[in-house]
């Protein structure tokens, strides 16, 4: 499942709700890998007061779903979940939650890493930080 929303979210609550509401996988998976990206208040030595995440609606969801499908094709994962914010974000708020479920740890961890790594270079999001020096677009890592 892929969710792109401007609403704040608590990753661990979202994960618990998703696992509780999902049907059919109970007892089948032995590994869950989770990645949570959180907004920092410091970047390259400057205080970051807030951040605006812009995205390309439609293309964003399409590429996130595709990356999840690719991960499921490369490793034996039973399910993938991605939730990503857009809009105005404050320090300590979650930006992205990724979770993968599989029988064994290696598959779950590899799939989770693949999804965040590919998201970083293919999902059309752009961060603009508000720092003590004004607004600036974040450069790719």
């Amino acid at each position: 499942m892929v969710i792109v929303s401007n609403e704040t979210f608590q990753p661990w609550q979202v994960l618990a709700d998703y696992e509780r509401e999902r049907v059919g996988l109970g007892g089948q998976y032995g590994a869950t890998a989770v990645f949570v990206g959180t907004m920092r208040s410091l970047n390259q030595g400057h205080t970051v007061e807030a951040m605006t995440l812009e995205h390309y609606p439609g293309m964003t969801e399409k590429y996130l779903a595709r990356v999840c499908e690719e991960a499921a094709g490369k490793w034996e994962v039973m399910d993938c979940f991605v939730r990503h914010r857009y809009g105005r974000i404050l320090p300590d708020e979650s930006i992205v939650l990724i979770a993968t479920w599989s029988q064994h740890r290696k598959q779950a961890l590899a799939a989770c890493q693949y999804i965040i790594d590919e998201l970083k270079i293919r999902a059309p999001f752009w961060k603009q930080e508000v720092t003590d020096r004004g607004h600036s677009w974040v450069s790719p890592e």
Partner: protein
Amino acid sequence: MSIRVRYFASIRELLGRDEDVLDAASEMTVTEVWQQAAQCEAPANTLVAVNEEFSHWKQAIDDGDEVAFFPPVTGG
């Protein structure tokens, strides 16, 4: 033919608008779409999408296509 041209992030700020609609008499490439719509030089690292798929500057554009220009992505 009609082409929707969209701009995101620093490209949107550079041009001062988030989209244009082009009426073109003949087939165009992505490069020609940029030249006609933006009327300035594209920043060196500008990326292109056609109909929500990453594409390239030589891609031919059809009637009704959506072409988007944006900087390298920084999500996650």
